[in-house]
């Protein structure tokens, strides 16, 4: 019985993946755990390991092809094992290539080969907007545009977006060859140096009042991707990477007020006129503080599982995430973020670890965790600020949040709209982006 090789789910909001390259040729032998092929996600290029030892046969997905998560991409046979014919009729036999374009155009034309379908998929999403040069560069690099978010007007993918994705893929490939995933890795150093420079801000152009996004602790702006997809395409976005997070410089922190002050400075720079403001977790606390300090600049406030409304917090998970230096040590803590433990796969943890590859960044975040959440307690209290906020405020919390208990939402005054989502944990914008987007849409109207 051959072993099926499938497209893994490495990203919480991942429905498809792009096969980037095979490391093993058809007919070659491969050992279990060896690199078998690379896939690309929005966040990183990932190496996928062989699930078993054997000979690689029946490659179903070619480089550049977009394949649905869980679909087979090839089979591994034992030495000398007879090759079985692929059951042509079962839909799982051929990779479930996602034909985004013109769904009615070619319903399962029997002669459609994978490469034909690829051409359809590659850059053909009906509402995908990309400049000619972005399309060409993606085509040349075997990158699927459907996996990218555009920074241009109405989400148009531009040259810079493709180049960023390619640079990320390259960096990830480099990092993947570094011993990060090996069992023994050096722990984050105690010493790290604060860096100069402004906080990293990215924007998506659009029409109307922009939505400013502030991510949570140990996350970064790429975490908004699933929600961004669910939001209207022409909604302008301004994403702020907190200091010591994402692509912002590393900064020492004396306390929450220090953090709030830093973000207000950036907010003043990027927000021209009143904006919609959204924050998650620690970013929710920051958004709340910004609304308190700049009441006239905030049109509406939306808080996803915000910090600062009670003492309890899962300090062990925060410290664990900040400290983890391998995907293996990161994965168990990440699983606490979602309501469903299968929301986080090992491959997802690998991708998340890639984003935290810089030991100085991890050291800085560990220090932050001590400053903001000493002894596993939220050392700052924003309930008074919540009382004072004048902007219409929306709060969304998962009922299965294991990091911040949803009961802290009850600290809110009566004017605040509260939505408690069932079957959702600490990251509602990733676990149920459609509902969150719908609630935000109504709130911002």
């Amino acid at each position: 019985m051959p072993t099926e090789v499938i497209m893994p789910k490495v990203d919480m909001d991942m429905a498809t993946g792009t096969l980037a390259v095979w490391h093993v040729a058809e007919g070659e032998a491969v050992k279990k755990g060896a690199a078998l092929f690379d896939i690309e996600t929005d966040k990183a290029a990932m190496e996928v390991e062989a699930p078993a030892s054997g000979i690689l046969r029946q490659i179903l997905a070619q480089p550049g092809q977009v394949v649905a998560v869980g679909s087979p991409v090839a089979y591994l046979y034992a030495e000398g094992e007879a090759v079985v014919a692929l059951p042509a009729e079962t839909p799982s036999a051929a990779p479930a290539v996602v034909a985004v374009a013109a769904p009615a155009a070619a319903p399962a034309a029997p002669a459609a080969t994978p490469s034909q379908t690829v051409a359809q998929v590659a850059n053909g999403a009906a509402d995908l907007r990309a400049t000619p040069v972005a399309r060409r560069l993606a085509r040349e690099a075997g990158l699927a545009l459907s996996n990218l978010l555009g920074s241009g007007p109405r989400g148009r993918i531009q040259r810079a977006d493709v180049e960023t994705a390619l640079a990320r893929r390259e960096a990830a490939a480099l990092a993947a060859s570094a011993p990060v995933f090996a069992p023994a890795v050096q722990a984050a150093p105690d010493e790290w140096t604060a860096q100069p420079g402004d906080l990293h801000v990215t924007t998506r152009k659009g029409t109307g009042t922009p939505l400013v996004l502030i991510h949570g602790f140990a996350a970064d702006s790429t975490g908004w991707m699933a929600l961004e997809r669910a939001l209207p395409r022409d909604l302008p976005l301004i994403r702020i990477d907190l200091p010591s997070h994402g692509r912002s410089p590393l900064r020492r922190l004396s306390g929450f007020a220090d953090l709030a002050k830093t973000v207000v400075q950036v907010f003043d720079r990027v927000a021209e006129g009143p904006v919609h403001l959204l924050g998650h977790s620690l970013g929710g606390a920051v958004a709340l503080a910004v609304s308190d300090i700049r009441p006239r600049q905030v049109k509406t406030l939306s808080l996803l599982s915000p910090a600062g409304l009670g003492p309890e917090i899962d300090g062990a998970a925060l410290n664990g995430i900040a400290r983890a230096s391998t995907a293996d040590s990161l994965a168990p803590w990440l699983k606490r973020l979602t309501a469903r433990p299968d929301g986080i796969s090992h491959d997802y943890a690998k991708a998340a670890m890639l984003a935290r590859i810089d030991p100085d960044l991890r050291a800085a975040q560990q220090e932050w965790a001590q400053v903001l959440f000493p002894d596993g307690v939220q050392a700052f209290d924003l309930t008074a600020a919540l009382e004072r906020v004048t902007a219409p405020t929306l709060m969304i919390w998962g009922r299965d949040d294991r990091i911040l208990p949803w009961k802290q939402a009850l600290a809110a005054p009566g004017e605040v709209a509260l939505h408690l989502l069932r079957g959702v944990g600490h990251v509602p914008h990733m676990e149920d982006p459609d509902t969150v987007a719908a609630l935000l849409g109504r709130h911002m109207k």
Partner: protein
Amino acid sequence: MNAQTQITEVTPSGETREMSYAEAIRDAMAIALDRDPTVVLMGEDIGTYGGAFQVTLDLIDRYGPDRVMDTPISELGGAGVAVGAALTGLKPIFEFQFSDFAALAMEQIVNQAAKLRYMLGGEAAVPVVFRMPAGSGTGAAAQHSQSFEAWFGHVPGLKVVQPSTPEDAKGLLLAALADPDPVIVFEHKLLYKMKGQVPTGYYTTPIGKAAIRRTGSDVTIVASAIMVHRALEAAAKLAEEGIEVEVIDLRSVRPIDRDTIIASVKKTGKLLCVYEGVRTLGVGAEISALIAESEAFDYLDAPIQRLGGAEAPIPYNPDLERAAVPQKADIETVARRLAKGEV
């Protein structure tokens, strides 16, 4: 058949001299009159009066009325005489007082001058040059301010040039005269007083070759005549913001220098066409189309943008007149948005 002519060479000295755009044109005409006895100047009031914009000035005193001829107030008649003279061996430079008045002479320019070489199987040539003061900005209103480059550029058999500097004004006029076929030279009225270094002696600036006036990597602006200068001013301002604009001076509308434009757009990925003629169906449409059809298409990182004249006659009111054609601030705004990926 054209008579053989005797040409006295005036060798280029390698020196330059500062002169205005108008002086450079006059210098070109004087050199042409000196070196080639078949060259004659024709036009309304170009003799004693010195020309509507004082470009011919004193040439009648220097070369006499046989070579600097005032023609009656009939553009069709004058242009007809010039075309006939060219057919029979002379090399006339015919000046229109305003390019707008060329509308009165379309038959001679479009149906005769441009066609005869083809219709007579190459047995005839019409080496005439039409000088046309063009453009707005002088408060001369709707019938004296137009930009007709695209009109004439649409006619096979004609060549159309638009010098933007004193050096090119001289070099392109001498190149037009050296060309065996009819050439239209659009001179921008606002440039007549512009000063610049001009090589002394005889030289030509090749027709059909654009000039890169400023190199840059972020946005390509293709402009002509006065718009080149506005684009350069905008580019200097944008450079302070870290935006590097490449400014191409088109110089020649027909033939158009595809290679230079394509190479630049392949480099920058962003194109802004700036021209004074009415935006719709103008020179910018041709440039946009040639890029969209070329290998540069796959390098575009933003929609092509055009800044052209308003869809209206040029107004008399000075504020409205300014608003009717692209200004430095307009160019700056669009180029900035292009560079920032906001278009």
